């Protein structure tokens, strides 16, 4: 079994053709994507009050200081929720189902969560709170996705 949706020839979990993530034109989240390209995981952490937040926003939701700082996190987390998708909602996914989506609560990030795919067999038994680690998935088109794998 390959890590990528059961097909060893695939270097990415989902087929090409899915919308690629891009940094906002207004510069709000450029740091996140730049870090992902470096295979680092970053979220916002307010320099004033230390509150974590994700996705990025111009203001800290707690103390309302503007322009929260970016903070590197470990890249580990736990499965907070998951699902197995059977119905393709995008033409590119016509032959990619079923696949797994996970919501991961990041370690050491004040409860911040991220959404990604769970690498490995799409029919695997998924456990709540299982420890997972981030795997950076570089795409030919130039963007990098953050996927998750159950920690060994």
């Amino acid at each position: 079994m390959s890590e990528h949706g059961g097909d060893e020839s695939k270097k990415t979990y989902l087929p090409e053709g899915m919308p690629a993530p891009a940094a906002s034109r207004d510069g709000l989240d450029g740091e996140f994507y730049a870090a992902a390209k470096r295979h680092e995981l970053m979220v916002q952490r307010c320099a004033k009050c230390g509150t974590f937040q994700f996705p990025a926003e111009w203001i800290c939701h707690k103390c309302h200081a503007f322009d929260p700082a970016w903070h590197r996190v470990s890249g580990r987390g736990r499965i907070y929720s998951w699902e197995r998708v059977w119905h393709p909602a995008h033409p590119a996914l016509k032959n990619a189902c079923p696949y797994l989506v996970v919501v991961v609560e990041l370690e050491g990030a004040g409860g911040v969560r991220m959404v990604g795919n769970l690498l490995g067999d799409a029919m695997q038994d998924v456990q709540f709170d299982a420890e997972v680690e981030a795997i950076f998935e570089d795409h030919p088109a130039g963007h990098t996705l953050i996927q998750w794998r159950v920690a060994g």
Partner: protein
Amino acid sequence: MPRRLEFTVTTCAGGVEAAKRLGQRRGGRAIDGVARLGPVDGDDRDRPPGLVVHSAHRELLLRSWRGLFARLAALVTWIVRRRRIGNRKNQMHDSVRSRAMDRKSALLENGQHVPVVGQHVGVEFPDALRARDMRQMLEQERGDAVALMLVEDREGDLGVAGIRAAEVAPHADEALRPGLPEGRGQSDVVVEVEFRQAREVGVAQIAAHRKEPAMDRSGTESAEVFEQARLVVGVDRADENLFAAAQSYLGSVSPEIGGKVFGSHRDKGITIAPNPGRIPSACRAHRRGCDPHRVRATAKEQRTDAMSENKIENTIKDKVAIVGLGETAYYKRGQAPVSEFRLALEAIIRACDDAGLRPAEIDGIASYSNDRNDSVRVATALGLPDLRFSNMFWGGGGGGGSGAIGNAAAAIVAGFATTVIVYRALAQGQFGRFGQTPAVNQISGPAAYTWPYGMSTPAQWIALRTRRFMHEHRVGQDALAAIAMACYHHAQFNPRAIMCGRPLTRAMYDESRWIVEPFHLYDCCMENDGAAAVILTSRERARDLKQRPAWVMAAAQGSDYRQGAGAENLPDYSTSNFKTLAPRLYAMAGIEPKDVDVAQVYENFTGAVMTSIVEHGFCHPDEVMEFCTLENLTWPNGRLPINTSGGNLAECYMHGLELIIEAARQVRGTSTCQVKDAEIALVASGPMVAPVSDLILHR
């Protein structure tokens, strides 16, 4: 919220009667009470003036406002004593003597002054006022010195709730001490006493008083200076030190006797100066021999400013009704034979016909979910003479249906419009499907954290949150299946339902394909073309129309803390977003969850219905498996029949407006699955979106 009780202060029994009668003329509703200053007992000659309170809320007064009236009386007493009125001699009015408290003697000496204040406080109005008073006294034939200003109406009979003179202490502060603990115990009362500028000095009696024996009318004193006092009772400050508050209030008042202006910040104030020699103008005029019986009622209706409204009643509750329902046929997606806008017009016209209204009577339009069928286009197409309200509930997809009703109701209550149409027209086949990810190459913003991973549609994020809830509360597939089967069950009785004639069994449910676990095909709402509309109007109009009104008992809209956070970062995760709305909704309605007879709960997906049932208080989250059963959720005998026309799953997907129509039908008694004696129907719109909204209709 502060609760205001409004009273007026008068100095004669006649004023009390005037209050009662004026209240009666207003359809039987009287003010909360009248405080009459006077001796409490006939034999109370040497006692300070007491306070006789006639109250519509007698028990309330006796229990909880006693201290407040003691305070008022103490204040007045203190002013009276400060002027040493009781001891003035000579230059005062004949009836005022050291034993002027003796109302009997006052009566004898001033037989013609029956309605006149037996004792006068030697105060003098500012020059301008006095001059005006004089003019008024010359112009008007009045006997009494006090005008009764009726400030607000309340229902109830005025009965006497006497406050003993013993409760009125010689020293103002002393009076407060016994009173305040009681006040404190009663939901934290704050009293403001406002003394208004004397606008006129006149009689507040009306002809009916002629019948009263003269003895009953006399026996009052003081407070001629106070034409009107208004007690505003606030009930919202827990644990405030009322004693300290009262002391500071009185402390602020006391230095002002003796020449300074005193009064509320809103009033010009009254200058009070010692005036032992002045004969009060009222009596002067009276001595000119005007007939005390030829008096006019001069009580005017006090302008009620916003602050004086009883805030508890200042909601939309029971002031607006749904009076007309309109629906087109419901088509499968892409199969509507006409354009979406035409569907909207059809639904609106049908709603008008149902109500017995002409479309031209519509003067307000409300919708939700960025409905494409623009309000101004609708108004233009229908030739509406005058559009006074045009409103789109902001955001939330299907979360806005009840919100649009709430907005329409608010507009009517606010006086913006009288007759508001709420509609939704949807032809997904013509414009694109909700359940598909747009085929774009790139995406930025919050969606960039989910779409590239194949997580984009409502089914997909609601499934994630449903899964978490099921994990937290040990809920299995049975609960979801029960919800789906209940909706399909009700659709079998509804000929308009798309799934009528196509019942759902458990085996069919289990064998149906997965969309996204834990949702099977049958856990998901349909996709339809069609339009629906409802008309709302005010209480006054609703009763004259064709159908039984479905009264809007309560509405709520909103969103919990950071429920809009992207990438599944909403802090409270496995929720439908009703946790803060439902309490507000029930509070406005004044009911509890157990009072709801039938519920329409928006099913984008069964999982969201499940969490909505929990969050509206119908069952505990750990009891979902026991509560969400086919037996409990189906008509006719279920504990809580839901989606009784088939709902989004089985009747049609009209973005929830069809649920509001079904709730109105339940209240009218015309549902195809009519819950017996259904009085209260709830609609939850959303769920698991932001914002969401709620509605309660009742008979």
